[in-house]
């Protein structure tokens, strides 16, 4: 595991540090940035730290917490093990964030995927369309309130179940024997 504290120290002079929350989690450097300084952080990472690759962009739904969507940018430098994870919360409905495509060209496809799956709108993206789901699909499937259903089967007495009924949900630290509760919606 690489020591990631140094990358945070190198980033510090180039960004509004007091507005960020930085930490090292499980061996990886993480920076949480508010939406309005996100692009400044990405630019500093690219131009000052030489993190020339946007390895991946993804998001997750923090339901029931607000703002719900946390978008995660994984930055790296080709040929080295330098890594930085930048995170930003997208607020509103639809949730919005500035697009990283102006800083990282490679953000084009993954931002489309995050838009497709979570409905996060990236302002300034040149071609923000669905990428994996059909163009006429309604809703954003990776949101936690987009429920999954089993396909109806024509057996007598069969009622389609949601997967959470098939595999019971056991909340963190549940005492032995409990479980089968409804997961947080």
């Amino acid at each position: 595991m690489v020591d990631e504290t140094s990358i945070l120290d190198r980033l510090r002079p180039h960004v509004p540090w007091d507005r960020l929350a930085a930490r090292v989690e499980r061996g990886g450097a993480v920076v949480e940035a508010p939406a309005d300084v996100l692009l400044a952080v990405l630019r500093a990472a690219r131009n000052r730290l030489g993190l020339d690759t946007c390895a991946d962009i993804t998001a997750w739904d923090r339901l029931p917490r607000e703002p719900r969507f946390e978008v995660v940018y994984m930055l790296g430098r080709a040929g080295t093990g330098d890594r930085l994870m930048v995170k930003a919360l997208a607020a509103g409905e639809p949730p919005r964030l500035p697009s990283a495509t102006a800083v990282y060209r490679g953000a084009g496809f993954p931002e489309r995927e995050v838009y497709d799956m979570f409905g996060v709108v990236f302002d300034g993206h040149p071609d923000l369309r669905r990428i994996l789901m059909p163009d006429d699909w309604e809703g954003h499937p990776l949101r936690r309130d987009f429920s999954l259903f089993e396909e109806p089967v024509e057996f007598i007495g069969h009622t389609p179940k949601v997967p959470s009924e098939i595999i019971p949900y056991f909340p963190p630290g549940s005492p032995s024997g409990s479980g089968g509760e409804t997961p947080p919606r």
Partner: protein
Amino acid sequence: MATTTETLTLNMGPQHPSTHGVLRLVLELEGEVVRKCTPVMGYLHTGIEKEMESRTYHQNVTLVDRIEYLANYNEEMAFHQSVERLFGLEPPPRARYIRILMCEMNRIASHLMYLGAGAMDLNVSSVFLYCLQDREKFLDLSEMISGQRMMPGYFRVGGLAEDLPDGFVAASRAWLDEMARRIDEYDRLLTDNLIWRERLEGVALLSPEDAIALGGTGPVLRGSGIAHDIRKVLPYGGYEEFDFDVPVERGCDAFARYRVRMEEMRQARRIALQALDRLPDGPVIVNDRKVALPPRAELARSMEAVIHQFKLVSEGMHPPAGETYVATESPRGEKGYFVVSDGSNRPVRVHARAPSFYNLQTLPAMVEGRPLADVVVAVASIDIVLGDVDR
């Protein structure tokens, strides 16, 4: 006669033999020349990431196998690296070596598929038959070890499902010995073949700047002269204990990617042989009853073992809350799982960083301004797996 400047829009795919799955490319053609290439994907989207949120970590191994279906062991490696980092677990040495052995043999098999399918796209169908014949022998090894030819489900959080079966070491050594000769044979057959070189050299050019900026990884990046291999720059799963070289070619074309993969097969063989030579003894899974199933024999004697077995099967394991991302090197490039856990028995979010998805993003840069016939070479040269693109 007046010349026209009209462009022709051509759909290549989704059903096309050289798209390696169901990929659709919308090509704007000016005569024979591609002016614009727009990849359209999602035809193979199966919602794996959504499905994984309603299953336990153990059940999800079944699903991750189906993402990059030509490199199942590498896929399982990537998923388990992330889950094990959540737990802070390290598999025992024997499990780490067997994992690396399987991943590297799978890398050879995956590159064989690239070579065969890529050659067939260029009408060299005999190479396809040879490569599939060799790959078949790897599938036999996979069947020996896990009972499955593909989608093995052999890795477990904290180790492996079972130890190696009798005769496996000898069988895999025999295959690796044979592969040394076979790879040299393919090299002699293709590398100095005039038609092969004319079709690949200077075709599907990708500058190092484009490759880096668009997120290209694996042989696509190394074929553009960037020495970037996750096994070297961010070693995981014990790769730091192995000697191997990272092949890099500066041609930036389809031929460079071909050369990189040929050399990678030799290096993968080298790593696999080291794993076989130095295979340690000992258990193949951690001795943690909250993560790993108790050994079969214990169930007959111990009530606790029965309870642990029951809880693990019916409820599954609870990783500590938090999130993690571990990058690994699959045959196609950087494969990593972003896993968010809330401490319950099911992940809140699992995201697979798919190398084929990003390598596909480099495709327009390779084909725009080039003849239509080069698109086939370009798609073959990025070795795309649509299950990985669409998930």
